[in-house]
Each structure stands twice: as structure tokens, then as C-alpha cells.
């Protein structure tokens, strides 16, 4: 009896003595965090496969809009473990994305063993978000630059900078207070468009239409749209559709807020 148990336990470990169950748990948490920080499905699959190959296990995963399911087998395909993990939405976080990819390469290159990988993963999952003030300033500058790219003059750039600064700060405050993200997008686009209409209202600058139009561009969910296309090309239609719908709903909310600002300021754009 004892012999049988010990044999079974041996079967549950890989050649490098990494328990299949532990590998499954690690890989599912890894995939959930990677997908949560806005990585594409192809990247997640590649990274997980890279780690699984190094550890001598076979893995397959199902990616759903809110969950990820991973099944891991041992070498002989005699024992398997399956885990469903809720995708940990951390917001778009390229720092976590890069660190997780680096971790997978370090594991593949043999620089990091299983215990070290677990410790590093815990550390990565606690990575704080980027400094909000820096993001606020850079987003405002980027949006003002957008205005310039479309041919806006210096006054319009200043108006767009102010509109983005106010709108983005409002977005940060509302999301900190756990407000609904759709309501947040609506409010931010409404106030940004009203501030962006300053060129029309006070007669500032020669390109008030550009200031008004580009004042809400910072709210466009570009990364979800790009990820949606990437997933579509890779054949992950469920994930692609989910990402697209999320982005489309946010775009609809920002358009509604923009139209609200347009109506409030009685601007005859159409």
C-alpha cells in the first residue's frame, strides 16, 4: 500500500521534481495576471507554453472574457490538474506585462528555478501602478500633441492640455472612488468637451474645432481595440469579441458625453 502511494506521488512530479499541481497553480495565476494587465492571448499562450516546456509538463488553456482555465499534464500524460482562475484586472500595466515576460524567459533560460519563480511572481503581482501625477501630466501633453498633429495652433493646444488635465484628473478621482467605468467615461468626456469648447465660446485661437474635437481623444480605448484585432487574427474570437465590446461600450459612453457637451454649448457642428 505504501509502495503504491509513493509511486503515485512520484508520478505526479516532473523530471525536475516540480509537482504538476504546483505548476498548474502557478501557470494559471501567471496567465490570469498577464491577461489582466492587457496582454494579448497569443502572448499569454506563448509565455505559458515556454514555462511549461521548461518544466517538462504539457499545458492547454481556455481563455474566456473573465476567467482562464489551465490543464497541466505530467510527461507521461497519466495525471493532470486543472484550475480555473479569475482574470486579475490590474488595468493596462505594461510594467507587469514586461516583468512577466522577462520571468518566463528567465525560467526558460534556466536562470530561475521554481521556488525563485514563485517568489518573483509574488513580487511582480504587487507592482504599484505608475505615478498618477506623472501619468496625468504626460497624458495631457500627449493629447495636446495630438491637437498639433491634426494642425491645431498653440492656443488650441493649450485648451486641449487644460481639457485633458481636468478630464483625466476627474477620471482618476472617479475610478479611485470605484465609480462605474462607463459613468466615468461619460462624465470625463462631457467636462473635457465643454472645456475644449473654450475656443468657440471665447473666440480663442484659429482652430477651435480641432481643440474641441481632440479634447476627448485621451479617452479612446486604443489598447483594447488593438488587442481585440490581435486576438481576432490569432483566432481567439471569444476574447476578441469581448474586448471589442468592452471598448465599444466605452467609446459609446465617451461619444454620449461629447454630444452632451456639444448640446450644452449649443454648437452647431452637424
Amino acid at each position, binding site marked *: 500500500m505504501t509502495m503504491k502511494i509513493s509511486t503515485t506521488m512520484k508520478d505526479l512530479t516532473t523530471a525536475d521534481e516540480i509537482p504538476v499541481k504546483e505548476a498548474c497553480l502557478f501557470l494559471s495565476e501567471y496567465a490570469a495576471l498577464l491577461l489582466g494587465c492587457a496582454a494579448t492571448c497569443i502572448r499569454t499562450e506563448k509565455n505559458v507554453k515556454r514555462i511549461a516546456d521548461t518544466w517538462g509538463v504539457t499545458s492547454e488553456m481556455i481563455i474566456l472574457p473573465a476567467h482562464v482555465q489551465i490543464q497541466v499534464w505530467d510527461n507521461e500524460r497519466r495525471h493532470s490538474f486543472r484550475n480555473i482562475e479569475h482574470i486579475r484586472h490590474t488595468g493596462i500595466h505594461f510594467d507587469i506585462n514586461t516583468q512577466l515576460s522577462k520571468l518566463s524567459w528567465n525560467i526558460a533560460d534556466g536562470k530561475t528555478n521554481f521556488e525563485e519563480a514563485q517568489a518573483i511572481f509574488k513580487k511582480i503581482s504587487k507592482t504599484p501602478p505608475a505615478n498618477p501625477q506623472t501619468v496625468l501630466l504626460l497624458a495631457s501633453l500627449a493629447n495636446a500633441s495630438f491637437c498639433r498633429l491634426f494642425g491645431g495652433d498653440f492656443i488650441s493646444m493649450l485648451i486641449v492640455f487644460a481639457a485633458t488635465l*481636468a478630464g483625466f*484628473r*476627474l477620471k482618476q*478621482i472617479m475610478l479611485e472612488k470605484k465609480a462605474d467605468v462607463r459613468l466615468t467615461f461619460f462624465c470625463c468626456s462631457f*467636462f473635457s468637451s*465643454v*472645456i475644449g*469648447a*473654450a475656443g*468657440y*465660446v*471665447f473666440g480663442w485661437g484659429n482652430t477651435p474645432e480641432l481643440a474641441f474635437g481632440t479634447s476627448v481623444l485621451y479617452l479612446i480605448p486604443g489598447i483594447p481595440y488593438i488587442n481585440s484585432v490581435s486576438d481576432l487574427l490569432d483566432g481567439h474570437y471569444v476574447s476578441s469579441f469581448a474586448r471589442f465590446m468592452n471598448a465599444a461600450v466605452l467609446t459609446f459612453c465617451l461619444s454620449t458625453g461629447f454630444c452632451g457637451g456639444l448640446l*450644452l*454649448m*449649443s454648437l452647431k457642428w452637424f
Partner: protein
Amino acid sequence: MNNQMIVWLLTVGVLFLAFIYAAIEKWHSTKRNQEFIDLNQIDYERMYEYDYEDFDNYEGLDDC
């Protein structure tokens, strides 16, 4: 000053008030958290140091 300007100023004023409200609320919550931390920093060892037989030490509790 036309109606459009008045509406614009009122809307921006509302947003400005919202920012002030958020800043005050944040300041209050920070203050509350600091008070909470102060409560946690009570020297409990000293608090329970007194001897039940010697009630002179009991006054030490007021300092905590």
C-alpha cells in the same frame, strides 16, 4: 457676456467644486488614517504593566 459663456463658466465651476470636494475628502480620510495609526501605536506593554496590588501604577493608563 452671452449665455454660452455663462453656461461654460457654470460647468467649469461645477467641475472645480467637485475637485475641491474630492481634495477635502481625501485630506479628511488621510487624517482619519493617521489617527487610526496613532491608536495602533499605543504602548500596550506599558498599559498592562501595572501591578494589581499597587494602584499607584494605575494612573499610567491615562498616559496611553
